[in-house]
């Protein structure tokens, strides 16, 4: 019975190849001649439309030598100045904007004011078409190239790079099959699988097609840090994907991204953990991948294709959601926004708690209180700040895992307020939850 199904596969008519595309064809326009639908939609990632909590707003700005961009996304720091207090002393407190389409990824990184702090080649891992630059810098070896470009000063590494993400970064040119081209993910997923008992995991060999429809995005939409002088990009997944597992990783490594300017607390920065948060939600549990919602099928003429206009699904609920949830598009958007409102309320309360704790510690420090007396309160700030950041930096405002986002923010409040008690009462032992 099943083999009837297989024989059907061969009978399909392969598409007519207008141009030969090889493993060194980086320019998407060339791929676009064979796959016009996907290419047209790919170009539309330059659009900027807001949703209630996502999408992005096109803000005009006067181009200058330092930053030739005439349009940027809105600044999250202006939207919520408490973020500046949370990240006081770190580049993020200088410039942090709403994310926008893939078309802008390279320029947005190159010209962000966060570049005023010294950055390195590692940053380019997720902000440009890196498959060829890594191969070229590594004499044909992707990992070696990765290791070569990482420690270079950003400006120098930038000269090795030509464009934002291209077809080559997600597709094998001959079969168009999905593939992983980012060392960060190759090594991160291997460490995660090893911790779950599967040694020597090679994602390009072992992952199913369905898993790849998530993993291609998880190459970049993840928490990360730069390890050691060689500034190696590492995804902290050896204990698991929950914020508690990742925090335990950083505690064991005694790692800090920066020392908080107002409190002296060794602090951690979380960045866009979409993959980690999604993994805790009911959609992931039901096998619903990033591509199902962010690259839903679209019928163009007589062809059904994956919509390569990667954007907020709430701008396209009919295709992104209705096949699985046959209800009115307005109701779907309303449900998503209801979840996001709850998350936003908890984020607001947690930010108030953290800012209050930071004020308390800063005051005590200024009043000459010693490090040992402030240790307990600092530990609470470190943990509360990372937990809040984990949800704040995640770009779905809780939608990817509603209960998990609420849990994390609740526990963050428990820590921040206990920090306030500890500042006032040195005998107070804050209660810390297990994993």
């Amino acid at each position: 019975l099943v083999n009837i199904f297989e024989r059907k596969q061969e009978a399909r008519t392969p598409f007519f190849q207008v141009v030969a595309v090889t493993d060194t064809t980086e320019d998407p326009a060339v791929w676009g001649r064979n796959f016009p639908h996907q290419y047209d939609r790919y170009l539309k990632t330059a659009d900027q439309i807001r949703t209630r909590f996502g999408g992005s707003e096109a803000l005009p700005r006067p181009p200058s030598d330092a930053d030739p961009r005439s349009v940027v996304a809105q600044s999250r720091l202006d939207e919520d100045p408490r973020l500046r207090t949370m990240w006081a002393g770190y580049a993020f407190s200088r410039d942090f904007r709403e994310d926008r389409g893939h078309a802008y990824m390279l320029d947005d990184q190159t010209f962000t004011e966060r570049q005023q702090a010294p950055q390195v080649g590692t940053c380019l891992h997720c902000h440009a078409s890196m498959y060829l630059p890594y191969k070229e810098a590594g004499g044909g070896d992707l990992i070696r190239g990765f290791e070569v470009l990482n420690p270079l000063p950003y400006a120098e590494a930038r000269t090795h790079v030509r464009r934002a993400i291209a077809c080559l970064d997600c597709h094998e040119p001959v079969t168009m099959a999905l593939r992983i081209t980012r060392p960060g993910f190759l090594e991160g997923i291997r460490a995660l699988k090893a911790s779950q008992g599967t040694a020597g995991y090679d994602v390009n060999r072992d992952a199913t097609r369905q898993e790849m429809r998530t993993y291609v995005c998880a190459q970049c939409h993840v928490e990360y840090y730069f390890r050691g002088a060689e500034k190696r990009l590492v995804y902290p997944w050896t204990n698991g994907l929950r914020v508690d597992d990742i925090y335990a990783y950083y505690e064991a490594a005694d790692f800090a991204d920066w020392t908080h300017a107002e409190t002296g607390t060794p602090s951690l920065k979380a960045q866009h953990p979409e993959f980690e948060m999604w993994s805790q939600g009911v959609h992931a549990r039901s096998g619903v991948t990033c591509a199902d919602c962010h690259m839903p099928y679209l019928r163009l003429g007589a062809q059904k294709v994956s919509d390569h206009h990667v954007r907020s699904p709430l701008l396209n609920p009919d295709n992104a959601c209705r096949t699985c949830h046959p209800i009115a598009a307005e109701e779907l958007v309303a449900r998503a926004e209801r979840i996001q409102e709850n998350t936003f309320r908890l984020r607001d309360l947690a930010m108030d708690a953290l800012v209050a704790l930071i004020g308390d510690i800063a005051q005590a420090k200024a009043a000459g209180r010693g490090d040992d007396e402030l240790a307990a309160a600092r530990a609470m700030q470190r943990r509360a700040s990372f937990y809040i950041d984990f949800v704040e930096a995640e770009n779905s405002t809780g939608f990817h895992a509603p209960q998990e986002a609420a849990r994390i923010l609740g526990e963050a409040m428990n820590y921040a307020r206990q920090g306030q008690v500890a500042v006032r009462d040195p005998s107070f032992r804050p209660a810390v939850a297990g994993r």
Partner: protein
Amino acid sequence: MTSTEPRPSYDMARAFRGTWAVAAGLAGLALGTGAFTFWYGKGASYLTNDPAACANCHVMEPQYAGWLQASHRSAATCNDCHTPKGPIGKYATKASNGFWHSFAFTTGRFPEPLRIKPGNLAVTEGRCRSCHQGIVDAIDQNHGEPVSCIRCHTDAGHRT
């Protein structure tokens, strides 16, 4: 019979003939009742393509009602999705389903709510392509595992 001492030999012949007669009688009876069940359960209609044939068994009614509301009412009958293309596959599946479903129906021993079994599911997945191969060529293009249509189009056949 787990007795260890050998059976007396003179019984062998008569017993042998006796069992033959009983077996033949039983077979006849089975055929007879089978025929009656077939007639009474409107078995003949089962062989046709008419969806109403499936709905003879009221346990199929929800699927029949769902089919009437779904997008394929004027596009595909139950057999178009639930039997493989091509005569041999079609009637082989109809025979095996026919037997097991009527067996389950009469004995009342089947899971509630009904779940399509892997074998029948593979047949149905295949049938989507017999009509829609053209439109899904692109997403079926690369040679990973074939995409499952009903992962997203669960209610293509019948809206629950």
